[in-house]
């Protein structure tokens, strides 16, 4: 009971929600990537790998160029390159998209550590000094607002970017011509093709952007939240993002809500030093919560009709 009391208390602290939002954004970026990719009909379970690659190159680059912005850019591109591989294999070679995704994830695990061992020897990758990390931004005035200011306007720069991207991607998907075409390609590529739309171009674009977003998330993880790379540091977040995307029924805001649930769970867990309950049971919280919500409220999710189906022009 005391445990619930402790948690109840926490829920009224701005710090908790501050942490929640940050943790959520880490998942939101790859989740958004997933939404875009799968809306175009390419199943993407490779966010984990793209994120990990992004994290590695963010640190590697930052240690060389000593500039977080450039480093983030490199990370984004690295994620994009991984996505490009997924795209080529899944679109051009019409491989099974799950196999390709799994392969990307395994590849990322291996190649990052392999590269560390090759280039940093068996030494420590090194630490990025605070001045060269992606900074926290206090939004002047707004950050003074009690509670809200702390929660929303004292965040890492990436958080703001992600929230903007959230809106942008929602609008893009559901209000613009490009969005219409992306969804058309994901629902019925033959129809899109016969209507004169470049199915492959759209899919390549969508998949690659999912990599860019995941790469950014990797940068946030490695040179925003932490200051170095450690093997496998993404630790399954890409898969959680995948779950969040489906939980959110392939919509940006739906995914965001799911990410908030996980973020909140993480944030509450982080307080295990003051919550009087087994830390292990505490950690189960977000996952069980998700199961309940999913079973109880969300229910059936309908993926894009052509999600996961390679398109072969001409063959009906």
């Amino acid at each position, binding site marked *: 009971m005391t445990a619930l009391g402790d948690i109840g208390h926490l829920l009224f602290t701005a710090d908790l929600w501050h942490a929640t939002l940050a943790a959520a954004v880490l998942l939101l970026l790859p989740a958004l990537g997933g939404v875009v990719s799968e809306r175009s009909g390419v199943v993407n379970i490779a966010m984990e790998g793209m994120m990990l690659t992004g994290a590695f190159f963010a640190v590697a680059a930052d240690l060389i160029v000593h500039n977080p912005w450039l480093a983030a850019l490199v990370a984004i591109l690295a994620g994009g390159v991984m996505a490009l591989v997924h795209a080529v294999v899944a679109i051009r070679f019409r491989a099974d998209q799950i196999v390709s995704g799994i392969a990307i994830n395994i590849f990322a695990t291996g190649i990052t550590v392999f590269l560390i061992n090759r280039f940093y020897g068996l030494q420590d990758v090194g*630490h990025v000094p*605070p001045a060269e990390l992606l900074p926290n931004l206090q939004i002047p005035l707004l950050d003074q607002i009690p509670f809200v200011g702390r929660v929303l306007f004292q965040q890492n720069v990436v958080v703001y970017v992600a929230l903007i991207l959230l809106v942008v991607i929602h609008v893009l998907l559901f209000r613009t011509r490009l969005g219409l075409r992306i969804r058309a390609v994901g629902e019925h590529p033959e129809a899109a093709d016969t209507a004169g739309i470049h199915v492959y171009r759209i899919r390549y674009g969508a998949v690659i952007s999912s990599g860019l977003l995941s790469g950014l998330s990797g940068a946030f993880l490695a040179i925003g*939240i*932490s200051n170095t790379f*450690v093997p496998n540091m993404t*630790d399954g977040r890409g898969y959680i993002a995948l779950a969040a995307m489906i939980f959110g029924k392939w919509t940006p805001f739906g995914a965001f809500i799911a990410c908030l649930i996980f973020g909140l769970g*993480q*944030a509450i867990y982080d307080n295990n030093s003051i919550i009087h309950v087994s*830390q292990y049971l505490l950690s189960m919280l977000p996952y069980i919560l998700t199961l309940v919500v999913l079973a109880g409220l969300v229910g059936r999710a309908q993926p894009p009709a052509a999600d996961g189906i390679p398109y072969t022009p001409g063959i009906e």
Partner: protein
Amino acid sequence: GTSGTPAASPTKTIKVGLVTDIGGLNDKSFNHLAYLGLTKAKTDLGIQGDVTESHTGDDYIPNLTNFASKNYDLVIGVGFLMQQAIGTVSGQFPSVHFAIIDGVGTDANGNDLKHSNVESLVFKEQDAGALVGTISGVLEKDGLTPKKSHKISAVGGVSIPPVNHYIAGYKWAAKMQDPTVKVLVGYSNDFTDPAKCSGVANSQISQGADILFQVAGGCGLGVLQAAGQAKVYSIGVDADQKSADSSVIASALKRVDVATYDAIKAVKDGNFQSGAVTFSLQNDGVGYQADNITLPADVMAAVQDMTTKIKAGTLTPPADIPDPTVP
């Protein structure tokens, strides 16, 4: 006891195999330190040293067996998690020397098998913990900490002995110096992911903690950084982590590298010691290192006093935390 193995003839190069636990060589923690010890031995003692990283717990036995079956002179298992594996394999290869860091060779029931070919390198982390605990306690008492909050904290990786020893000593010593101090203890349940630890750290910081002790290997780097961003103090672990973040005021040292080196040297010199070799303040196997700030005189004095008392045995830091969740 001592094993009767004759000194290896100087002509034959000694072969040493190092098996990391799942943390891997880049864990920025004891696996890495052990590797440094091995490399030093390679250069100084001209031995042949090979490494195998374990990717899952399933790898411990095969990796150890692999070296043993090739008649390596010494096979080193890094980490508490490998106790059972060492126990098993050492039984299969009585003629091969084994060393395990942070543990002993056990059977399935966790009993020390006391094999004559196993040297267990155990550390009194609590001694080191007590020293940094003293530093924290005095700073708090003198109100020299960023928030003067009389609250300090520790972030553990997983709640296992090597981790809890540190924290126990830390908590004990801090309270001794400043009875009013509250010590928050949290766990990240992770040894590799800095984000996890910085999360725990941030929560402790928002609870008022202004000195944070990381005991979570690579994950713990997140603690040091979180402290830096919040402009509070932090304490590193195992190695001197001064460079990891400017917030690091001291590091609790655990000389895994030294232990590893010594174990190898012993085998080379033919005086391999079976049974537990304890590294404590006594033999400088553990210690501390003051980092980015210069500690005031009374702090140094207190630390000095604590050191002598522990060495003299008049004070013995506890090895366990009764209940981590009670600050």
